[in-house]
């Protein structure tokens, strides 16, 4: 699913300004009211936790099951009746998979490389464009921004035929470029939207002061705006990277047939498509492959959520 254009979280730009403003006494009573509102009865707690448990079970079931499978020996896996818990569970699959999926390291490195390259391209395109949209009231700004956002409505699948011909003409077929170049294009719109929103919050006076001091426009962008916008640029970089890592499939499936360039999802898909799938190893490999992202979200979830979802009610 494409990550859609949303605004940066208010909280990022204006940390905790609502609490600081009120005088101490008033804040205390507000706090008391809040505490009372947030008080639940025991059956409300029960209902909420039960609901959350069901919801999270749906969200996490495939991961839990996948992890259980990765621990089961193959003989236990293909046995009936079904048992959820791995009997004689072991981490064997995590060691044997390196041999049975020969290119595994290569796939992970390819995935990281393709995502990184796409992120770099996106940033090079997006930083100046977002600044232009945020600052300059040039003619046609609205329609042009809308046109960029409209890119989000096409997936790569719709444009696959001409893209295939284009990649062939450029000589990109069966190279990393065939996966990087089209992938990056579909990440640009959301990144522009996100960064533009961030840059609009940078006080205009800063540009004007630099202008009065005789700095050129380009110098102002490089020396005044870029350093201040760094937190926003980092958020855009992270979300773009995760988007690029999550969506590697169709271009890699269609434009590249060389094993040594395959990203992780395609590498594992080839393995998945075989007659006899060694499921415990496939699941073990999947877990190793997603670990980098899982670690990332634990540390960066605040920025991810801020970057991707806030501003739902921006009026």
């Amino acid at each position, binding site marked *: *699913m494409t990550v*859609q254009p949303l605004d940066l*979280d*208010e909280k990022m730009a204006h940390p905790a300004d609502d609490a600081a403003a009120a005088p101490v006494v008033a804040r205390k009573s*507000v706090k008391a*009211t*809040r505490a009372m*509102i*947030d008080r639940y009865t025991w059956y409300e707690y029960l209902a909420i*936790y039960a*609901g959350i448990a069901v*919801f*999270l079970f*749906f*969200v996490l*079931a*495939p991961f839990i*099951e996948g992890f259980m499978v990765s621990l089961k020996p193959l003989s236990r*896996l293909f046995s*009936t*009746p079904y048992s*959820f818990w791995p009997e004689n569970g072991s981490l064997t699959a995590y060691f044997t998979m390196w041999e049975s999926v020969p290119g595994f390291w290569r796939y992970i490195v390819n995935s990281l490389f393709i995502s990184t390259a796409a992120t770099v391209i996106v940033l090079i395109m997006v930083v*100046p*464009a977002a600044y*232009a949209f945020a600052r*300059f009231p*040039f*003619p046609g*700004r609205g329609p042009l921004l809308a046109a960029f956002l409209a*890119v989000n*409505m096409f*997936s790569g*699948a*719709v*444009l*696959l*035929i*001409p893209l295939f011909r284009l990649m062939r003409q450029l000589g990109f077929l069966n190279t990393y470029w065939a996966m990087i*170049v*089209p992938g990056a294009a579909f990440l640009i*719109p959301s990144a522009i939207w996100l960064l533009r929103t961030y840059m609009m919050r940078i006080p205009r006076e800063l540009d004007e002061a630099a202008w009065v001091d005789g700095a050129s426009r*380009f110098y102002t962008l490089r020396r005044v705006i870029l350093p201040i916008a760094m937190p926003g640029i980092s958020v855009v970089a992270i979300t773009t990277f995760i988007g690029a890592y*999550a*969506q590697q*499939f169709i271009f890699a*499936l*269609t434009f590249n047939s060389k094993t040594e360039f395959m990203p992780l999802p395609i590498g594992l898909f080839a393995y*998945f498509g075989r007659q006899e799938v060694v499921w415990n190893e496939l699941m073990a490999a999947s877990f190793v492959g*997603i670990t980098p*992202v899982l670690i990332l*979200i*634990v540390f960066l*979830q605040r920025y*991810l*959520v801020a970057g991707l*979802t806030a*501003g*739902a*009610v921006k*009026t």
Partner: protein
Amino acid sequence: MTGSRSASLFAFALLTPALLYILGIVAYPLVDTINLSFTNAALKPAYDWVGWANYEKIFKANFSEVIIRTVVWTFFSVSIKMIIGTFGAVLLNAAVPGRALFRILTMPPWVVPMAIGIFMWGWMYNGQFGMISGLLQNFGIVDGPVAWLAYGNTAFWATIVTDVWIGVPLVTIYLLAAMQSIPRDLYEAAWTDGAGRFYRFRRITMPMIIPAMVTMSLLSLIATFNSFDIIWILTRGGPSGSTTTMIIDTYKTAIGSYKYGEGAARAVMICLFLSVFCLAYFRVVGKINTGERA
């Protein structure tokens, strides 16, 4: 410094790289798709203009069936995503201990490489050894193994469930953000006046998140209509075409059997649908941004 001609020129200069990139990788292929849809292009380099022949051909074949299937598939997937996502957002918005952790735990399906999540579903749907069939048998709900992906009907729903699973985190977190940006004063005032929890939800939360729900439904509609990976990995459009949506159909025609012209005609039909959704999106977002309620 603003408003001058040199400022506009500078802005265009800044936009040029991104603009050229999108023109080359998205706009040109789009025009080329329309162009190809009127030709009999295939593997061989030379091809001829054939007018509307491709369109006549696909509608004489089973294309209307594919359109209906796609619309039904998309409708159920988006509706279920919105329902589960709204429930999830309400639950995660409750001020209970542990909610920060619950919010993190919602995210994996969305950030993990899609294909890998789908592999795990592929195993869960396995009839002999998979979790769903296994648990249902253990609880005595079904008698024998059910191979979910082997029959048209169950495969259709199985792919919807997986699509819902991938889409739910974004809907949930988006609506949660919308709920959290509702001013607390509203709730406090209502609470002071003696309004109960459900009354506050119905009269404050719901009206305030409706614009976000409309926006999210449309974004979700566009993404779901374009859904390729899930169906391709789980069923490749089968069994016997029962999960062949317009995207899968286009891919099979163009990449599977090298009928570029015919495939392009099918892609153009997808674009027509998408432009309608897209226009709706811009209308709604425009309305929200100018302050009207959608």
